[in-house]
């Protein structure tokens, strides 16, 4: 009798523990690692895993602010176009004789401006959803990149620029180190500052937040501007890794980024989600794709797998809350 009670208690504890989406992610993560290392002896070599981060971490910089955007209950699908635009403008301005450091600053400011423009439109035209605004700016930004460069490529960057994408810092890829710094910054921003609390409040109830004195518009503009800035950071790393740039770089990145955020447990209804989950899902998706690549799974099949994973991630909590409601009714 006593034992039964105890076991029941323990299972409840376990249950509440596993209710955290992050723990499920950790579980899937471990499964991915185990399965991959069984399938391929090359997977678990530490050097391989660490350098694999170079492949997928470039998008990860956008995932962090995108989590903010989705917690707000909005969405930004123009990020890939911002990456392309800022990368192209950086490449062209370098090729026109601008010093590289200045071109990099130009890249960051183009991203910031594009994000600011998104935010401004969304705030000034509240009748429009963020989907439609960023959809049209997505076409416009990519279009401007095409106007500037056509079907040409810009490149020939100085040697030191490739350090961003390929260099090491203290034995770790420079990209990984930078990402870690940004992850900590965004963690503090979201979880330890009033700014972060305001984002959650706005995601839960925009009207109530406005009436309680939060400067709703200002925060929205800041978040979208931040997204633009981080998109241009991605542009820096991506361009450095590839060594040249074209107007059609980063096509489809917005989907990957949104998939990672949603998989990280950020609710698309807004107001829910944590940076830890998002970071976990970045590495989960990254290592999953890396493992699939080692198994010679074609890129198209990877598309299917990531798509299904995304659907699975969104639909799981929905069905759970449904059953919960049903239970509470009876």
């Amino acid at each position: 009798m006593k034992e039964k009670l105890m076991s029941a208690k323990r299972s409840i504890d376990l249950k509440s523990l596993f209710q955290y989406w992050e723990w499920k992610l950790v579980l899937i993560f471990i499964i991915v690692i185990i399965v991959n290392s069984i399938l391929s002896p090359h997977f678990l070599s530490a050097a391989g895993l660490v350098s694999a981060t170079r492949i997928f971490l470039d998008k990860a910089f956008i995932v962090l602010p995108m989590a903010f955007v989705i917690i707000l209950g909005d969405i930004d699908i123009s990020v890939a176009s911002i990456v392309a635009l800022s990368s192209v403008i950086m490449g062209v301005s370098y090729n026109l004789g601008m010093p590289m450091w200045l071109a990099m600053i130009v890249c960051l400011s183009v991203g910031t401006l594009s994000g600011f423009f998104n935010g401004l439109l969304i705030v000034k035209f509240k009748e429009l959803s963020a989907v439609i605004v960023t959809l049209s700016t997505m076409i416009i930004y990519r279009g401007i990149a095409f106007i500037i460069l056509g079907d040409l490529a810009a490149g020939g960057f100085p040697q030191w620029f490739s350090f961003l994408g390929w260099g090491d810092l203290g034995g770790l890829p420079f990209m990984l180190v930078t990402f870690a710094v940004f992850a900590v910054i965004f963690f503090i921003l979201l979880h330890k500052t009033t700014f972060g609390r305001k984002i959650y409040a706005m995601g839960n109830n925009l009207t109530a937040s406005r009436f309680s004195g939060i400067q709703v518009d200002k925060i929205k503009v800041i978040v979208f501007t931040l997204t633009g800035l981080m998109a241009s950071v991605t542009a820096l790393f991506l361009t450095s890794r590839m060594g040249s740039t074209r107007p059609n770089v980063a096509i489809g990145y917005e989907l990957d980024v949104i998939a990672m955020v949603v998989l990280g447990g950020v609710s698309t209804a807004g107001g829910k989600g944590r940076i830890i989950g998002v970071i976990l899902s970045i590495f989960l998706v990254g290592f999953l794709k890396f493992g699939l690549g080692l198994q010679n799974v074609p890129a198209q099949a990877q598309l299917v797998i990531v798509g299904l994973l995304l659907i699975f991630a969104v639909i799981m909590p929905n069905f759970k809350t449904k059953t919960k409601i049903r239970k509470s009714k009876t």
Partner: protein
Amino acid sequence: MPERDLKNRINAASIVKFRELGLFIFIIILSIFIQLRNSSFLTLDNINDMIRNTVILSILSLGMMLVIVTRGIDLSIGATLALSGMVSALVVRENPGMNPILVVLLGIMIGLICGSTVGFLVSRGRVLPIIASLGMMNVFRGLTFMVSGGRWVSAHQMPDHFKAIATGSIMGINTMIMIALFIYLLFYYFVNYTRTGRYIYAVGSNPESAQISGIENSKILWMVYSLMGSLAGLSGVLWVARFASAQGDTAMGFELNVIAACVLGGVSISGGSGKISGVILGSLLLGILNNALPLIDVSPFWQQAIQGFIILFAVLVNVLVKRRVDRSNLMRRKI
């Protein structure tokens, strides 16, 4: 009081009509301008060509209109189109003797399956439309590459009567145009004169009250996405027959054009309103732009940005006009 109400309504209605008229006038001015720059624009050949290029866009826009009317969006249709086109091209390659009508039905079936999957996720799984269709877009696009093994099906592998689906003619009119006209009429009747058609608008303009008044929202949503999918499936067959090649990346990004056509045609993204005539005019405008920009020596690299600006412009003007109407209605109420 009722009289004043009626007046307001007339005012609002006239502005909506003005919108379509405005679009129409804009199209005419644009055509005249292009004609002045390049006289081969308004030749019968070119017009015929242009209309045939616009047919697929306009068919898809009708479906997308219904989706947007229910406050949703479907980004997966480009991938659905590619999948259905690819599968039907593969089937035709293996069975050259197959009846074209059967091929068309096959394409519609594939589209229906794809669309109802998205619809299921949206209506039963309560996934946001943009996320559901984004995920399924990946899946469909991946499947397209997988069934084809990454290879193309090209013109010489398709029998002539298959290509005739797009190039043939019935009573002197191109088959594709006939199909499109048939779909326009069908949709016009369905949306305006059937109960289910009106339900779609009810669900879109106020989901809660639609639910309370006994409409099964989730069924309507499911139906709308399935319809969208079927139209995309049909368009897939038409696309492959028209361009006589099926590729893995067919119609990549085409969903944006379709959404743009809807937005230009005055379909409100916040749901509940949209007219078939507007959507057809919207897709015609985009078709003209696509066709005419090369004719007046605008570099193809400018096309995307121009399209984007026109879409943004149309959306913003839409909002400003609506604000104006609302404000004038409020003012009148004061007096």
